[in-house]
């Protein structure tokens, strides 16, 4: 079976434990919310195919364990990531403070041109808010990345956030492709149908 997507984007969700990474992902991939999630151990990913500017883009979104103890394992996944969502919890100041550390972590382990975005999750719980939206925005500006407040529970901005990130990655990729010239197009990140692990060297010589 041929792959039906034009691009495959690998995204990564990071942030302190309990900020709602898995819920954000579940909202995006299944459009549902489940409050009984258990902590993520190791690594998991979900897939959703979206369409941008007429191109089918398969988003492979990796969900990581939040606790920094697992960084040795999770950082192994930074390398292949094309986009990273940094998630904090607006009701938890600490998780916001740690965004800096996560960014530093990305700088150490991810590729330098990875697209980043900061999400302040749980924005439906305004009454318990500890981090103002302004603060989030300022932090994002200081790192030169985009920012959104989301709520997986109330389904606010989750879809938009991922689409924005995907759009940014695609734009960056298109720029790169333009820069390298048309003839090199296939060497970019664009996946051809026969690309990847499923080799198909069709050798039949008859019709």
């Amino acid at each position: 079976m041929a792959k039906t997507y034009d691009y495959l984007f690998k995204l990564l969700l990071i942030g302190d434990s309990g900020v709602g990474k898995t819920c954000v992902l579940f909202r995006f991939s299944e459009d549902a919310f489940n409050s009984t999630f258990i902590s993520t151990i190791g690594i998991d990913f979900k897939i959703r195919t979206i369409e941008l500017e007429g191109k089918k883009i398969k988003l492979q979104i990796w969900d990581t364990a939040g606790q920094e103890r697992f960084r040795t394992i999770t950082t192994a996944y930074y390398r292949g990531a094309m986009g990273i969502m940094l998630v904090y919890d607006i009701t938890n100041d600490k998780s916001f403070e740690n965004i800096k550390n996560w960014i530093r972590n990305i700088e150490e382990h991810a590729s330098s041109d990875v697209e980043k975005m900061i999400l302040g999750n749980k924005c439906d719980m305004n009454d318990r808010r500890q981090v103002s939206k302004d603060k989030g925005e300022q932090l994002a500006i200081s790192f030169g990345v985009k920012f959104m407040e989301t709520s997986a529970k109330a389904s606010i901005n989750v879809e938009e956030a991922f689409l924005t990130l995907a759009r940014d990655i695609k734009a960056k990729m298109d720029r790169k492709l333009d820069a390298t010239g048309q003839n090199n197009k296939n060497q970019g990140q664009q996946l051809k149908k026969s690309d990847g692990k499923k080799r198909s060297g069709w050798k039949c010589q008859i019709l």
Partner: protein
Amino acid sequence: MTENRDSEIRERLLWNVKKEVKCIMEEAVTRKFVHEESSSVTSLCGAVEACLLFGLKKRVLGLFKNTTSTALLQKVAKNFEPAADIAKIVTAQEIKMDESKKSVDNNKNHSKRPTLAYSSKYLWIRVALCQKVLDVILDHLVENANKYYEPHSLVADPCDGQVLASLLVGPCALDFTKMKTGDHYWTDPPADELVQRHRIHSSGNHHIRGPDSPKRPGLQVRRHTSSSSEEGMRMTPQSAKDYVESLHQNNRSTLLYGKNNVLVQPKEGIQALAGYLSLHQGNEGLTVKWTPNQLMNGCSKTEHTEEQDRRFCLSPNEMAPRSHRYLKKKGVLYWDYAVTVYMDEIVYLHCHQQPDTGGTIVLVGQDGVQRPPIHFPKGGHLLAFLSCLETGLLPHGQLDPPLWAQRGKGKVFPKLRRKVPAGRMKQDSLNTQAGSVESVNSMNGSIEEEEATDYVFRIITRFTPDLMPPEMLYPKAKSGLNFPDISIPWPFKTGFGKPSLNEIPMATVQSHTPVSPDSTTTIAKAVSNKVRPVYKVPKQLVSHRTSIRQLCDEMKRQIISRAFYGWLAHCRHLKTVRTHLSGLVQQTITSSTIPQDASEGLTEDLWQQFNKDGVVTDADEIYRLVYHGGCSHGIRSQVWPYLLGHYEFGSTQEARDSLDHELHTEYEVTMSEWMAVEAIVRQRDKEIMAANLAKLSSESTSDSSGKALPSPFMRKDSSLSNDVFMDSVDVDDHIVHHPCDTLIEETSSVTTTPSEQAPSERSIRTLPLEKTDSFDNQIITTNLTTKTLIKAVESPDEGLGDSKPCSKRDSCSLSSKHDTIESQHSLEVDQGMPLPEQEEFYTENDKEVQDMLMVKNIIITNPSVDSSDTEQLIGTETSANFLEHMEDALSVGDAGSHISASHDSIISPHTPGSPASHASNGGVYSAEFLEDVGLNLHRIDKDVQRCDRNYFYFTPENLDKLRNIMCTYVWKHLDIGYVQGMCDLVAPLLVLLDDESKTYSCFCEFMKRMSHNFPHGGAMDTHFANMRSLIQILDSELFEHMHQNGDYTHFYFCYRWFLLDFKRELIYDDVFSVWETIWSAKHVASANFVLFVALALVEYYRDIILDNNMDFTDIIKFFNEMAEKHNAKQVLKISRDLVYKLQKLIDNK
């Protein structure tokens, strides 16, 4: 007559709807959600549409040309509200679609988005289905059928109409999701579906199987299809899907040629069947496969096949022995007809061309037996096949005579116009001599002789004594031990009747001078004169005798060398196994049947027998029983403490009771310790929270934050410091500044109060468990009270042996002394003494800045104690000066004592071992320590709150128990702290034991092994390395696959398995049985049983992994989705088998 036809049509229409409903409901169950644009929705809509259109009163309704039922909806909408709603939505959507279509056209984008076309089909039915009103509308239609439908229609039928409406109730109850594009599904099938597919495709005896699969190479002898044509034809399919997939291009073989509707008569007395002919080049050489169309089409139930089935049943002996679960009825027979021919067994290829029917090929084996004739359709297919075959044979073989290359036309038959009946007869007679000629071909041959152009090609393998194929000399590592199966065919080949024996050496001799098609037309012409007699030239006959002998000798040598290399490979293999893996299992193999059958496990009766007088002694037997058969659930709570090492085997009831009691009190003491700290942390958190809130509001309201946010080094108002905890409100980075002075004053006052006496007393009770440093510390802290001042002075002398604790203690005791004396002249001592000590401390820790801060950041345990304003003031001032004067060693006055006091608290967080010392430390904690505890508590809370909430046991009350256990453990192991996943390990223990202190103790035992798996331990990497070696040895094919598909032999996908002992992979009941098996395996079979469970999980799905060509991401997704869906019983069985297998392998010296 028409009535009958109508009812037939109705039946068929209804049957279609039933089928589709069934499909969609199944999809809903297996996937949990169905996409709106899923193909099953479309086909259901199609089936419903067909029903609705049948017998519709088009004329009456004025719908002449309409071929869809949309107009019907419009009609119904006039009198029926739900239909009207649907009609509205439909119109709206149609408009939207038109617009987007236009916009697409405007953009000159001609590739119309497929989703649009997709959803516009049966639009209203689809919309009604998604809006869950389709059944209602149909009900309405059925009730008012006479208005819209002819009497013979399905809807108007009194019975069928109702059935149709009620069939749709189910699908209308489903929720459809719009989330994904339709293609999402078939590009990434969910794990469930993969497993299900596998189950469906594989036949009964091959569903999901363990590592002992016949497919696997390695230590087993590969079953080679024997060369008799009988066997070749009756090939038993490994699994239908495997087989069908093997016909296509895949990574194991290359498809050289494929043609459908090739006729083959697989058996005598059966008509020729149409099928798919394919030519493959794989590891085993060239293979010709022919598969009946019925198999290719997935055994569809057409009348045609049923008819044929009936005909096939005439040969009942074929029916009997097959036991395929899925293809029981029809497919089975066809499997017998499928043909697989290995080209290296074929010597001759007879070609018969008939101008009217295309061509026929008959393959003749080296045993002289003819394979079923293959009839190609017209149009050069035979030639195409031959040229592919010729290419495929290269470089080791060729067709003789070779095909001719003709410019512009490609390969053509050699120009052989004259037929030589004599030669043909000769060949036929040769075949008859061989004794196994099928009559079919010779008959065909004689009939066609007049008109057809017939050829006989010989297939020459370039197999010469000098040029041995490399695989003969170097047995592949993979199949290092399969020498017997290769050695068999050769002597077998030589042992045939004389005519065929004559021909083999000829072939080999001939192949010394390979004939290239272009250059040697002369030879081809010679062949053309007499179809094959080139080889029959008498002068060559003499050399044949010698060459036969030569060949026989050569074969002997090859057999011997092959056997030798095989043996050598085996030895090497075993050496690797022994060196790397022998440590993983115990040498002695414990039987599952001796002294008694252990498959039932440890039952309650057996447990009663062991536990007669309250003393359980026969540990080995219990381990053996649990390992082989698990433990009855009812007695688990009794047995587990033994298995985990909480109770000792052979202990008496009283001993156990007293142990429990002891541990219980200890547990409570520890709990009270961390709870005290928790109270502080809570309070602190509240303040921080309040501070943040205040900050938030102040940020938004005014710029008065200047005062609200002092820098860490800024002095605060003395009025503010009235309340100890208000101080921290102002602190930016959650570090609490506290005057050292207050601290001392308060501790001394606190320790005198009876309520605060408690912690130190408690910690003294737990003394035997503590390390000596903490012992010292406790003495010091008790000494802080004025009453025991003398003792404090004495205590330094007790342990002057080791330098560090000693010096610390020195300073502490000094400080306490100064504190209590509070005299001017003691200052001199102070100035002298603490300073060097201080320096020593800094150099030791090598992080001066941090320590400087810590000196400042000290907090008091007891929030209830109020200190006087004056004291506070002094403290504030002194500590304000403190930092500034740090360089000058000391400030004047009381400051000296403050410094030394702060040393005490600096030291405490660095004292290795028990945090209990902090509690007893007069209640003094550094901010860093509190930070640490707070973080751990926060994490524990986060994880406890979301731990298995779906499991009935975890009510809020029981979650509290879980939390208590977790906190107690972390409190005792603060150096490691809480790591995510620990909760998961406590949970099953708590569920089973339902006793906090016992669970805690068992958990501690459990963690002795498990804690190494956490990131701070190194066990995980060892696990991965061992997995690698194990899988390499026990399933090399799978290893090879993993290695080649992006190399995921790092086994990261097993991370969670090892970290949590499969807790997340299995449901609770299964976790219990897997855990107890792991624990007892340590004493029975292997201390690393987890490895074998992990291996069994991989092996259980090996075929799915291989068939779907899974890479790392696929496998992660697969196992994450398969979590809690494994068959634990089967997996455990496989794991024990694997242990046994490895034991045997090592044992086999």
